[in-house]
């Protein structure tokens, strides 16, 4: 942590990272093309709850408190083809109808344990399109979660500038 602060200080002294030149602004989070979410409010809600069900809250922060639902939505909106996006939309609808069929209730109304059971039945099931949809959402959830500042710094040994490389140390 100290080293990171030191490097930041050197960098700021040497030129000031605080003021980005105009050309660079195209690549800052604030200036990237605005997320054009293609989800309806209901889809958005279902998607968010899938993400929460995959990694729920406990004494260890879950996906929701680490902002993962927004990340998943951003990724789906910006980084995937129309065909994949449509499969996601369709997947959300099929999930809802499965919830109705099985529990005669809307997915978002289900208790956590039933949401998870429904999602696990997709993971283990044989419907290829539905599995593709769920695997994508799940992988993005995992990516957003493990890429978060909290998980990176608390659990995954993240250091911006370790200052060394030891090639062979005991586990």
């Amino acid at each position: 942590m100290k080293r990171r602060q030191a490097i930041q200080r050197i960098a700021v002294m040497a030129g000031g990272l605080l003021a980005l030149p105009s050309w660079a602004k195209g690549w800052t989070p604030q200036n990237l093309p605005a997320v054009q979410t293609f989800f309806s409010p209901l889809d958005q809600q279902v998607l968010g709850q899938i993400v929460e069900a995959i990694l729920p809250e406990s004494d260890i922060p879950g996906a929701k408190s680490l902002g993962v639902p927004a990340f998943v939505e951003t990724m789906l909106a910006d980084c995937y083809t129309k065909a994949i996006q449509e499969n996601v939309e369709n997947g959300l609808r099929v999930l809802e109808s499965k919830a109705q069929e099985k529990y005669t209730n809307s997915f978002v109304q289900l208790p956590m344990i039933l949401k998870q059971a429904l999602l696990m039945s997709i993971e283990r099931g044989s419907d290829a399109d539905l599995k593709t949809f769920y695997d994508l959402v799940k992988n993005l959830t995992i990516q957003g979660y493990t890429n978060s500042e909290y998980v990176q710094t608390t659990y995954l040994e993240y250091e911006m500038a370790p200052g060394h490389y030891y090639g062979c140390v005991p586990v």
Partner: protein
Amino acid sequence: MNIQKKNKFDAIVIGSGISGGWAAKELCEKGLKTLVLERGRDVKHVADYPTAMKNPWDFPHAGRVPLAIREQNPIIGKHYLFTEASAHWAVMDDVHPFIEEKPFTWIRGYHVGGRSLMWARQTQRWSEYDFEGPARDGFAVDWPIRYADLAPWYSHVEKFAGISGNRDGLPQLPDGEFLPAFEMNCVEQHLQRSVAEHYTDRQLIQGRCAHVTDPQPIHLQQGRVKCQHRNLCVRGCPLGSYFSSNSSTLPWAAKTGKMTLRPFSTVHSIIYDEKKGKATGVRVVDTNTKEMIEYYAKVIFVNSSALNSNLILLNSTSGRFPNGLGNDSGLLGKYIIWHNYRGRVNAECDQFLDKRTHGKTPNHSYIPRFRNVFKQETDFLRGYATGVGAGRGFEADHSGIGEDLKNNLIHPPLGNWSVGSWMMGECIPRKENHVRLHETEKDPFGIPKLVISVGWGENEDKMVKDYLEQLSEMFDRAGFKNIRATDSHSNPGNDIHEMGGARMGRDPKTSILNEWNQLHACKNVFVTDGACMTSGSTQNPSLTYMAITARAANYAVGELKRRNL
């Protein structure tokens, strides 16, 4: 007349990348008033590295560039450099169009510093066996220089740039002026022992790379400090720990007070004066105003990156040179070469499971060329060097859901060691592999579009096959498991080592440049970037460009003093 005076310099350097930076440094240090032209924007060391201090979670798409931007740029969009952390260095296909007569992944750096900010920083010297190659094996033309001509200049640039490595004592990979090497890991060391045990003609060594591992006074004077193992090099290093024009040669040149750096200046052509029988300056298109401006100098260094240097020369036509400056032989733009990176062999290692690595390394291991080094042994010409990297990461189980999954993700177990290798093969120069100007189509700056027409040959195919067999065998003998050998069939250019087109040689009838990198037919124009390469060898080329440039620049200064230019 006033404009002429204002636009008059002793030297003009076209391009600010690895070789242009060196030309600027050497010429300015020798007192020449030097204009450095860069077609792209300025990039100030530190201040203009916008992503350098960003954490993984600071990128809105976890590093991935949105699809719409990738689709708009189908060539660069597929390249590994095109991430949220580094895409600001990318040259967008739609802004700077060229014509792929055959598929060519042209990775360019149009900004001050050029690709010296984007390079992989591997810096291996060429050996005598590389310079002798064409003459011994009967391809291209004989290099007009030998290792001995370049050796002192390798030392010169290595001391300043800062190169880490071990003195390995190998004739095919001469030792240099080294700072301490980075550590190899358990599996790389194991492979090193295994290779030594099973082969007499092969060695695995630590790669040599342009990182300051133990700053000497010359590096501290440049404001560059010890590498902190961030491994975020491609974003620009705020510590100046790896060599780039931005952190090293350009500020050094600027400090002399002799350098004028002009960004947003795309060179249209070199002006040739028929009466004087030499070049007198360059025509520049200001990329903001599209205005054409002329600058004048006694000596011109062409360092625009290999293919663009060809373009500028081809576009510099006059009564004396109707087919491009210095192109009496008609060979300008021909014999384009690159490096064959198609082969990959990956594996796992289930030994050393009680060991792991700690921290990060910006380097990897290296197997110098062992094929056909001292004599011809195979059914293909030349050979390949090999990059090798091993590592051990966390491998979380992604199955399941809820608290169990979460626990798997935050307490991931270490997986097996993974080992990767990639070939770096020498391509044989062939005349049909060429670049030329398009007859009618122009880019947005009014300059003819470059047509790139290069492709793989039989020698390259055979070499890939041999590489896949040999590395698989070496991995097998080391006890590695799950060995996977693949030919990516990647496009030429993906290696970012394109070279040639204005090759050096002894005979003006069969080459474009002489032994000092002067155009045979126009001695005050020097070409010292990748365009000058007669053959390609297997080593990463940048260090050789630096040495060739420093040598030529010092010769140019001497020739100016002797009033020969």
